[in-house]
Structure formats: structure tokens, C-alpha cells
């Protein structure tokens, strides 16, 4: 079977995959990326490189991904449709492929209203489902959106996001099916704290045969403190941290809250390993990359 990337190969082999996350710096300092690479290398199969996440201007995901490629750590380049029209999108995908980038995660992007420059105009020329189809068409037909034959077509392993915790719940599985039909090869989910709801979503997806058509990586974010748990629940769009988790974090003294957060992660990963239709985890230790090695080792993922 032809595989497009190392991550694809790992998932195709049936092994439980692990991806991490690297947020590029707010500046041109490559040392920040080098430091994150060192913290993640050897622990994960690939690393998502975020694309101006929360609409805050950072080094581009393409450039940061290229630094990962050079260091021998496989990137999953995130791409949002907020900042580029279809012309820039196709051009950037070709450029990224030429730099050795082999995985892409297709996203809508956080609205710029949240970011550091809310006065900006957004683009949203195409949506994230259109982006998935665009990457697939370029890969499988060797043509751009105008039907022009590309000299060398970018051949990427295509990822998409799913949020089982956003409303309306009933539509979340239809949307997953739509992304798979459009060409998604793998799915990374929003951070899982509400396991009941996640399992219900996976059950519905598997009833429709969707879990056989796509690799699903469950999202994991270690909580550093009870305050962070509350913040994520109240302030972060589309996040669901149940009261029981917040109480549990509150129940230990401040110094031990980070350890408790990691414990919760490890329990979640154990449950995900046992859940049919889950093929790996995506660990998003936001500005806490040090935690990834510990989680991976303690969860026996390596």
C-alpha cells in the first residue's frame, strides 16, 4: 500500500499513533522551534504545526514545518482558510510539499475577533471541507482547481478536525462523514475531557461505518491547574470540561495540580486505547511541551 508519510505508515500498520503540537513563535526566532523539537523528538510520530492559532500573528506554519523537516521530525502542517484565498492556498500547498512537508491538517481557523489584530479582514473564500477536497483533488488527479495539469502534484496525507463537544451534537457525525467524503484520511479531535460524550460520538460514527474509513486520533491536553480547567471550559470556543474534572483538579493542593492533570491524561489515554475506532492520540500540551515525553512514557506509547 502506498503511504504518503511516516504518520500514515504508522497508522496503516495498525499501531497506536501519537502526535504532538508545536506553536511557532511570535517572531522569527528559530531557536524557539529548535527547543520544542528537542522536547518532542523521539516521543511522537509527527507534530502539528499551528497556523496563526487563535488568530495571533506568528511565524508561518509552512516555515516552521520546514524547520521540523530539516531536523528530522515529521510535521503535520496546519492550514486555515481564514487568511488565504484559493489561489494562495493551492500555491502554499505546492510550496509546502516542495519543502518536504507530507501531512496537512485542514481547518477553518479561529475567527480573527479573538486575536491580536481584530481589525483584519478575513478571507473564508472556501471552507475547511472545500480545502480537504482541494488537497485530495491535487493529490489524486494531479490537477489544480482550474483543471490545470500540475508538473509535480503535492501528495499529502490529509487530516481534518472534529469537535464531538460542539453543538448541535446530532450534526457532528454528519459533518464527520462529509469531511471523510471530501477526502480526509485522518481526524484529530478537540481535547477530550467529557469521555461519555466522546464515546457516544464514536459509537454513532462507527454505526455509520465511518471509523473504518478514517484514522481517528483523540485530542489530549494536560491541565496544568484548576484555573486552566475553568478557563478552558468558560473561555475557549467549543471546549467541554465537565464539572467533575474541575472539582477533581480543585481537590488537590496547588503544587500537585499539574501532576493531577497528567494523571487525568493518562487515564483518558488508557480509555482511548480500549475504544474501538480510536487509532491514536493527539497531545496538545499548550506551551508545556515538557509534559509530552512524560505522558508518552508513562502511557507506554513508546
Amino acid at each position, binding site marked *: 500500500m502506498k503511504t504518503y508519510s511516516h504518520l500514515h505508515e504508522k497508522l496503516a500498520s495498525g499501531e497506536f499513533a501519537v502526535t504532538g503540537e508545536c506553536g511557532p513563535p511570535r517572531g522569527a526566532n528559530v531557536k524557539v522551534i529548535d527547543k520544542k523539537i528537542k522536547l518532542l523528538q523521539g516521543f511522537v510520530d509527527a507534530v502539528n504545526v499551528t497556523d496563526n492559532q487563535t488568530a495571533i500573528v506568528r511565524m508561518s506554519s509552512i516555515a516552521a514545518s520546514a524547520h521540523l523537516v530539516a531536523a528530522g521530525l515529521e510535521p503535520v502542517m496546519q492550514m486555515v482558510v481564514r487568511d488565504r484565498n484559493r489561489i494562495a492556498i493551492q500555491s502554499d500547498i505546492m510550496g509546502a510539499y516542495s519543502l518536504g512537508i507530507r501531512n496537512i491538517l485542514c481547518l477553518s481557523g479561529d475567527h480573527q475577533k479573538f486575536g491580536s489584530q481584530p481589525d483584519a479582514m478575513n478571507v473564508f473564500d472556501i471552507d475547511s471541507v472545500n480545502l480537504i477536497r482541494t488537497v485530495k483533488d491535487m493529490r489524486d488527479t494531479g490537477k489544480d482547481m482550474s483543471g490545470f495539469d500540475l508538473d509535480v502534484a503535492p501528495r499529502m496525507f490529509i487530516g481534518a478536525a472534529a469537535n464531538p463537544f460542539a453543538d448541535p451534537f446530532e*450534526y457532528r457525525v454528519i459533518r464527520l462523514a462529509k469531511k471523510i467524503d471530501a477526502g480526509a484520511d485522518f481526524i484529530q479531535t478537540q481535547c477530550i475531557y467529557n469521555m461519555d460524550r466522546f464515546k457516544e460520538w464514536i459509537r454513532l460514527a462507527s454505526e455509520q461505518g465511518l471509523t473504518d474509513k478514517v484514522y481517528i486520533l483523540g485530542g489530549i491536553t494536560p491541565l496544568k491547574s484548576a484555573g486552566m480547567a475553568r478557563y478552558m471550559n468558560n473561555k475557549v470556543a467549543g471546549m467541554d470540561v465537565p464539572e467533575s474534572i474541575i472539582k477533581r483538579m480543585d481537590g488537590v493542593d496547588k503544587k500537585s495540580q499539574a501532576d493531577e492533570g497528567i494523571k487525568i491524561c493518562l487515564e483518558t489515554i488508557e480509555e482511548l486505547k480500549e475504544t474501538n475506532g480510536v487509532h491514536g492520540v493527539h497531545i496538545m500540551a499548550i506551551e508545556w511541551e515538557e509534559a509530552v515525553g512524560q505522558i508518552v512514557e508513562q502511557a507506554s506509547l513508546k
Partner: protein
Amino acid sequence: MITASQKPINEIIELVEPYKKLLILGCGTCVKTCFAGGEDEVAVLASALKLSFKKMARPIEIEELTIERQCENEFIQEASPGIARNDAVLSLACGAGVQAMAKRFAKEVVLPGLNTTFIGIQESPGIFTEECSGCGNCSLATFGSICPVTRCAKKLLNGPCGGSQKGFCEIDPDTPCAWHLIIERLTTLGQLDNLKTYIPPKNWNTSLSGGPRKLIREDHII
């Protein structure tokens, strides 16, 4: 209707300051309905400006007039004598009205007194909401007559993003998620299957992306 709201009084004062004789020209259709540019608003603004200029000890003569529509030549004519008597026109019309006036009176100064906001409706007394972007290629039939191009903050055509919660948009807890409304309505109509169909990239050529648009009705050209 086209909705608009009056510019802040200080901005208006700055705009009209160079002129001694001013015509405040209201527009009696859309912007009257949204309480921004009808007779009543013209009168209130005229009083406010007179008071402000008096305080600054600056003389100004203000004349008031409201016509049916500033965007149509047959009504614009009525303003001709008033315009001739004054140094400048402060137009309380939408951007189309201001420009129609400027086209008709090539040598006169025409200033905007309103910020034009959107094509919308009065949802409840005093609350106006945007409903249409005039994209030139209506697909309301697919979406249960709720427009995602206008009412989804990300113009998503293939379903809601991951940010909507409890029926509201991630950008603002007071803004309903258009996709939530679409799904609710299509469920009621038994047409939820509409949403399983892949919607290809939109052709924006009929919208502002294709440059300023022109509508030609051959049968009405004289």
C-alpha cells in the same frame, strides 16, 4: 432594507465645519425605517448642530429637507433649489444615496452623515439584524432560507465550525449560530439531508470580488 446609523456628532461637526450654509438632506425610505435619516432625525441633528456651533461661536445656517429616496433621480430633483442655496449637503442617506446625489450635482459638496451598515430587517423594535450580503448567487433554498454566507462569521457552506455552543456563535455569546438555526429549521422541514451534500467552493465572481457590479435590464433601456 438598507440599514444605517448616524455618524458620531463630533465627526459630523468636523465634516461640516468649513461650510457656512448647510443643507441636511434626509432620505424617506430605508434609513427612515431604521431611525437614521428620516424627517425626525434631520430635525434632531439640525438642532444639535446649531447648538454646537453656537457654543463654538461659529455662525452656520442650516436648512432641512427630506426627500422620498436619494438613490432615485426623480426624487433627487426636489432637492435642487435647496442645494443651490447652500454651500454643502449633509446627506442622511445610505452610501448609494450619497453617491447618487454626488453624480447628479457634480459641482456640489455632498457629505455622508450616516454609516451604512447592512441589508437587514428589524427583528424586534429597535433591533436590526443583517440577513443578506447581496452575493449575487442566492442559495437560500439549500439552507432552509437562512443565509450562511451572511450570518455565519466564517461564511461556511458545509456545516458549522467547532466553535458553536448552545446555539450561539464563538465570536459573540449574543449572536445566534447561523448553522444552529439552519439545522433546526431543516430538521423541522424534514430536509436535514440537504446538508449531506457537498457544497463546492462558492463562485464569488457575482459578489464584490468580481469588481463593482452592474445590473442590466435590456427591456427597460430607452
